[in-house]
């Protein structure tokens, strides 16, 4: 009787193992839907050809900060592809799901592509918005997301701050004044970058959308170049959205190998081509050259050089009681 039961249990478990499908969950920031829809299909095909195993990748999108908090609270991400390193650091510190030195594990500080912040305006640019100083003028309505929840909004804020410092002899008080004026012109704060695009492009609110470069291009593609146009400011920030494995989740799911390959494939020729095609600035020279026409050359400041890194920038500007809380009252 005991032997029979052991055989019954073992058979049941073996049957279950044979039927197992590899599933990954990629928790990403708001505007990467189109990128990962295309990339996931390409990776699944690559992995099937290489290993013979089918893999299904599910996506979750939202404001980068919110997404990071969701993973901390139990969302079982195998990989995260967020807007800024600080949000991934939060997952490491609060939930201990990955090591503190995660950023060293992949090339270019685990950033397979970059982006920046540009302006999307109505066709004809009726308010003649050419640079950051036009955005703070009275009568100009600005659309951007909430830097408390959106990674893109934090890059935007810092780009504006960097411009204000550059044009005011690095006077912090004037920069604060500049940022205050900017957010006075913001009537709606969405939680994520995609929400802001909806506000501007679909709800037709505002004169200018401060957008991820890729988001601006996607808006042109979707709504037509007869509706909007992109204005590149004189200065912006080099946005480096990183990617990484969520070690403990992947280990528990038995997906570490596939998840690692999923991230590495972003650096492959195909991965870089897909990034460029979706208006992200590829790291590879070949892809960068291929898609160079999509990307205007402009002065780009970096988080490290201009703000001494994300930890300091977060503490100074976006933490509770930081400068954003001081200048913006909902």
């Amino acid at each position, binding site marked *: *009787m005991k032997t029979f*039961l052991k055989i*019954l*249990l073992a058979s*049941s478990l073996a049957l279950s193992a044979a039927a197992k499908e590899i599933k990954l969950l990629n928790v990403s920031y708001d505007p990467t839907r189109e990128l990962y829809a295309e990339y996931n299909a390409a990776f699944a095909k690559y992995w099937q050809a290489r290993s013979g195993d089918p893999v299904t990748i599910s996506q979750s999108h939202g404001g980068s900060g919110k997404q990071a908090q969701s993973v901390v609270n*139990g969302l079982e991400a195998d990989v995260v592809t967020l807007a800024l390193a600080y949000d991934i650091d939060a997952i490491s510190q609060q939930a201990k799901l990955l090591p503190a030195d995660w950023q060293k594990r992949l090339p270019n500080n685990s950033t397979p592509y970059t982006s920046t912040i540009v302006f999307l305006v109505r066709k004809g640019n009726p308010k003649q918005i050419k640079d950051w100083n036009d955005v703070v003028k009275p009568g100009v*309505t600005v659309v951007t997301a909430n830097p408390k929840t959106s990674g893109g909004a934090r890059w935007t804020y810092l780009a504006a701050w960097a411009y204000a410092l550059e044009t005011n002899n690095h006077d912090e008080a004037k920069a604060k004044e500049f940022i205050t004026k900017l957010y006075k012109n913001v*009537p*709606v*704060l*969405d*939680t994520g970058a995609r*929400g802001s695009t909806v*506000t501007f492009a679909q*709800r*037709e*609110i*505002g004169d200018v959308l401060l957008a991820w470069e890729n988001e601006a291009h996607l808006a042109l593609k979707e709504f037509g170049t007869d509706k909007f146009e992109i204005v590149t400011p004189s200065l912006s920030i080099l946005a480096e959205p990183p990617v990484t494995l969520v070690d403990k989740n992947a280990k528990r799911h038995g997906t570490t190998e596939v998840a690692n390959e999923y991230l590495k494939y972003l650096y492959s020729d195909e991965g870089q081509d897909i990034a460029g095609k979706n208006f992200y600035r590829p790291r590879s020279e070949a892809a960068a050259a291929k898609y160079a026409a999509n990307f205007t050359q402009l002065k780009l400041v970096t988080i490290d050089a201009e703000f001494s890194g994300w930890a300091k920038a977060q503490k100074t500007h976006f933490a509770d009681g930081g400068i954003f809380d001081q200048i913006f009252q909902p």
Partner: protein
Amino acid sequence: MKTKLKQLIVAAVAGAQFTLPALAADSAPANATQVQIPAYAAADPSGNSAEAAEIKSLKQQVEALVQKVNALEQQRGPADQAATIQDLDQKVRVLARQRENDQDAAATVAKAAPKLVIGPGGLSASSADSNFVFNLKGLVQVDNRSFLNEGIVRGSDSFLLRRARPIFQGTLYKDFDFQFTPDFGGSSVQIFDAYGNYRYRPWLQLRAGKFKVPVGLEQLQSDPVTAFNERSLVTGLVPNRDIGFQLWGDINGGVLSYAVGFFNGVGDGRNAANQDFEDHREIAARLFVQPFKNSQNLALQNIGFGIAGTWGNVSSNSTGLANGNGFVTDGQQQFFAYNPAAGTVVANGDHWRLSPQAYYYYGPLSLLGEYAISDQQVRKGALAADLQNTAWEISGGLVLTGENASFTGVTPLHPFDPRNGQWGAFQLVARYAELDIDKATFPLFSNPGTSATAAQAWSVGLNWYLNKNIRVNASYSRTTFTGGGGAGTTAPAIVTRQPEDTIFTRVQLAF
């Protein structure tokens, strides 16, 4: 003419007072004409040539001024209106978008909030992600037993709290269920259920703890939904609850249900104590088939049949014998005991049970039947025997108010609400059962003068389901005996001297 001039001057002045301030607010053109009306022209319209010339001049100035005002109004009016409309349009869009965002935020907060529900199923609390679910249910049964045959020996009429159970259930991480059920209804508090259950799949589950052994069909039916106050004589031969673990599942939505378990082992009709009474184990297994469960044919959907059994071994222990060392009637009076004239009987050796069983439900009609064999090796001193007792029952019901009957009870379509002419659901029920003691039991292992060799019981009743949670029932049971009833006053002979006629009533609250 002077009147006309006066009217002209008044109109010009009045018009200028309305138009000039508005124009000033909109940055009136630098060349706006200023009209000066001499005082004598308004006060003294005497009409000499100097005055006429001046009046003519004034008139020309006013006309020019009016023309300018008209021109400006035409230029700015529509543009102002368009700008205002656009501004308002943007404000409306902003408000609508803010509302959308607020609704999204509220939905996100609601998703994260725990849920609390109170309803016919009791109290249920669940975390937002459903990883933690807790249910509080309950069962209270207040019975009355009235024994008839006044003047002849009969049982004690009594009200009793038959069951009073809070039922704590829950699920952790979606796959791990638990249940804890203490009972306060008897003379002492007992733990009836205390188990955990892991659901790998509906067809493969593992249960461990104290729970009903998967054998008797009527025994497995939930306490609040049995047809009568007390289960039939068959239940005397099958185990109640025991401690162990069980692999079980429902295949293809319950077309085939199976269970196989290892338990401490418990005597017939017993509810196991919280630790084993000896060191052998008992295996229990059950297969139950509902071959047409997924069929569209309503007449066949609820046909079920199966077989269950146990096998174990007991070493010289009276606790291995039936509950109370004997068997009881519907009125819970003992009619058989292992009470030989001398010596003590103990269970010693193999004990196996087999129980084929079936039910059928179709609309308001219900039928349930089972047969049970309990084969037990016993010993008294140097004497040993293999005794096989059997029992069977057939019961049926008819819901009079049109609701469907089922193994899990009756739910009234029109809950009790007399103010609106609703009375709940009514069900007629009837049952016949027999229990036969192995003839080899007598006289060595039981006194034929005091224990019956068989009992036959038939019962009829009416169940009134006021709503999903409250039920009232009344029934009559008559149990007759074969044998027993001897001259001695030793129990259980008293019971077996005449048939037991009992009226049962119950008020039940279950949630």
